[in-house]
């Protein structure tokens, strides 16, 4: 590289080309820098807006009380916070094992006839708008098997969103497990399923945890599919077979209301949701860093 530049500098007719290249370089780098700054400023504006508007709503009652009826001030969003955690846990329990299994199938049995269709299906689902998934689960569960709006329908809708995220992330992670480890285990006389469960998956466990957290963080902010499934609930309910509340639903409802107090609470709920997702992402970063070590 250095010798090339020196060589160019000694050739006069190439001098101008080099100068133009440097100018182009500078322009492109400046544009890239500008785009980066714009992106960060935008993120900062959103976060600042949420924090400034949301902080006044945060008090003890906000975290410990139920919503008050129309027109009454006070109360909190405790059911929404608990509901979001419950939905995350239930959808995670449904989606994470399925996603991991699909990824194992695609990576470890890639020569098989079904690996390519499974990956294609995962990509298709990942590309579906979440409202479409909501409508599908609404037709299947709310109108069908369950018969009414229910938390479990919300969990299923979120799980459908999570499965392809888990599957595609875990697929990449499993591909990073060196082939030599699989060979070593096979050569020890282990059957293939044991090679996968005892060697491949444990080696990739940090990455698999990352995939799970990523999927939960992604789905925790989904609103549209929950409107059609979990519905929301002003009363405290942890029963997954009945409508339950969630932070995105609470934000949606309060933001559309005519009351000043509810608007503040919507900002507060937004702040809580952003914080929860932010903490999950932070945990994810730390897990990745530890996994890399």
């Amino acid at each position, binding site marked *: 590289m250095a010798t090339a530049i020196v060589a160019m500098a000694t050739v006069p007719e190439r001098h101008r080309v080099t100068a133009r290249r440097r100018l182009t370089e500078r322009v492109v780098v400046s544009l890239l820098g500008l785009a980066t700054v714009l992106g960060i400023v935008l993120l900062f504006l959103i976060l600042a807006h949420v924090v400034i508007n949301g902080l006044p709503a945060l008090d003890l009652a906000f975290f410990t009380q139920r919503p008050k009826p129309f027109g009454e001030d006070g109360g909190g969003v405790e059911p929404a916070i608990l509901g979001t955690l419950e939905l995350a846990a239930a959808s995670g329990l449904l989606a994470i094992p399925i996603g991991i299994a699909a990824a194992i199938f695609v990576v470890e049995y890639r020569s098989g006839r079904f690996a390519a269709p499974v990956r294609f299906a995962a990509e298709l689902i990942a590309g579906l708008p979440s409202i479409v998934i909501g409508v599908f689960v609404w037709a299947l569960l709310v109108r069908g098997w369950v018969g009414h709006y229910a938390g479990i329908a919300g969990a299923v809708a979120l799980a459908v969103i999570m499965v392809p995220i888990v599957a595609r992330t875990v697929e990449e992670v499993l591909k990073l497990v060196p082939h030599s*480890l699989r*060979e070593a285990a096979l*050569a020890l006389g282990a059957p293939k399923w044991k090679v996968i469960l*005892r060697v491949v998956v444990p*080696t990739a466990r940090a990455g698999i945890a990352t995939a799970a957290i990523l999927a939960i963080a992604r789905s925790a902010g989904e609103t549209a599919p929950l409107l059609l499934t979990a519905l929301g609930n002003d009363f405290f309910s942890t029963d997954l077979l009945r409508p339950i509340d969630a932070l995105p639903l609470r934000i949606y409802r309060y933001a559309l209301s005519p009351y000043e107090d509810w608007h503040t609470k919507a900002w507060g709920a937004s702040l809580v949701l952003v914080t929860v997702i932010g903490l999950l992402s932070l945990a994810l970063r730390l897990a990745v860093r530890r996994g890399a070590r």
Partner: protein
Amino acid sequence: MIRTMETRRAAPEPPTAAPPETAVRIEDLSAWYGSAQAVGEVSLELPRGAVTAIIGPSGCGKSTLLRCINRMHETTPGARVAGQVFLDALDIYWAGVDAVEVRSMVGMVFQKPNPFPMMSVYDNVAAGPRLRGWKMDRKTMDELVERNLRRAALWDEVKDRLHRSGSALSGGQQQRLCIARALATDPSVLLMDEPASALDPIATYKIEELVRELAVDVTIVIVTHNMQQASRVSQRTAFMLAAEDGVGRLVEFGRTDDIFTNPRDSRTEAYITGRFG
């Protein structure tokens, strides 16, 4: 290739030596990757309790041949084998034989040290018995781990850090850990695929020492592109060469002394004197 057919048989033993018992018999073995043939019609008889070296230039099929002895070759998608390999009396490619069973009778050490990174030194050695579902109490397992780390000449270096990660060891130690791991299930045959090519000279020397010691009770087949190594550690040497069609065939097989001092094939002579490869 007619010449190959004439010269591939082992040199006759001197009448004073007892005929060596055969541990591995390879008959007319050919191997393919997809439609590309890598090994062509190799026949070999490997004596028990001895070290056999397979030498030859890159791409001559020596590693592929080695991987046919424990049916690892077929784990590569599209790979195929024809011919027979006998471990003692067992034809390992017979339809009723499970590849997993075959691999549990034959140990294998790879070119790059590959200890399981999420397992401790102890767990790496215990991995074989555990993966095979052997039931044993803690004390028996402790003894097994210690015995095999001693066999791999690693015990003194790791006895104080048995429960730390195996990937914290040096390259040479990692490779000896892999040897201990392969020995832990008491294989009668140990396959080594260029086990020292990623190691420095001192670590290489230790591995070679170990190979000589282990050969007392284990039949060892070692693939190497280092001819000095072959002459140092082995009693038998097989020289393979890829023909112009890319198919690796056996050129000459015999006592290591004979191959290196008095090769019968001009191509063997050319290779060991460094004229190609």
